């Protein structure tokens, strides 16, 4: 996929565990794990906003477009 999810990098930078982020934004750990690995077809703006709020970052810090 051309869109790369950088959530694991952001989590490491903020020293936050996936489990904690999942409970704070109200999604399951399984879904967060799928998001981290880029195995989802899409991200809701609502989820993206909640992640950005918790990690104090911008959507661009979490998602990156890679030219094929």
């Amino acid at each position, binding site marked *: 996929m051309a869109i790369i999810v950088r959530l694991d990098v952001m989590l490491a930078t903020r020293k936050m565990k996936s489990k904690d982020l999942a409970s704070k934004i*109200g999604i399951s750990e399984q*879904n*967060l794990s799928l*998001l981290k690995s880029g195995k*989802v*077809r*899409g*991200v*809701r703006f609502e*989820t993206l906003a909640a992640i950005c709020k918790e990690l104090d970052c911008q959507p661009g810090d979490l998602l990156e477009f890679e030219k094929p």
Partner: protein
Amino acid sequence: MPNPSTSNTFKRVRMVSTLLHWACAVAILFQICVVPLIWYAPGWAEVSTSQMTISLAELHALSGWQKYVTMAVMMIPSLVMAYGLYRLHKMFVAFARDVIFNPEPILHLKAFGIALLAQTLIKPVTGALTSVLATFHRPEGERVLSIGLSNAEASTLFLGGLIIVIAWVLGEAVRIDAENRSFV
């Protein structure tokens, strides 16, 4: 997070589906028993056979192979409908178990629509065949080929088509739901 009004709707769907799957089971039993009842309980059948192509008296006068072949031919539309109702029963069982946005119940609905169309198209043919079989023993010139068509058949064809189209639309809804579930 599930919407409370959506949860209530699904609760109602489950409740009504539970009732309807029992209603379908009764209807299947009726479809299977209706022809034998016409033969073996003559008084009961006076009203339900008003659209038959030959009279009940003529049917009861039959004997030997004619009796069994006519009975078998008369059962064809009922068995087609019983199969359609069986698929509808399976759909309601799935709905009652909360299997709603899933391809399986939608396929059952589509099969019911096809069975309804097939039964409606088969009925005039088996009706004509019944009249031929029932009057086959008569001398030449007294044999009958009777074809019965009514507005009810046209309405049922329309209903069958409608159910098939609804099944297609629901199939698309299932696809959209699956896509929505793959979003986090």
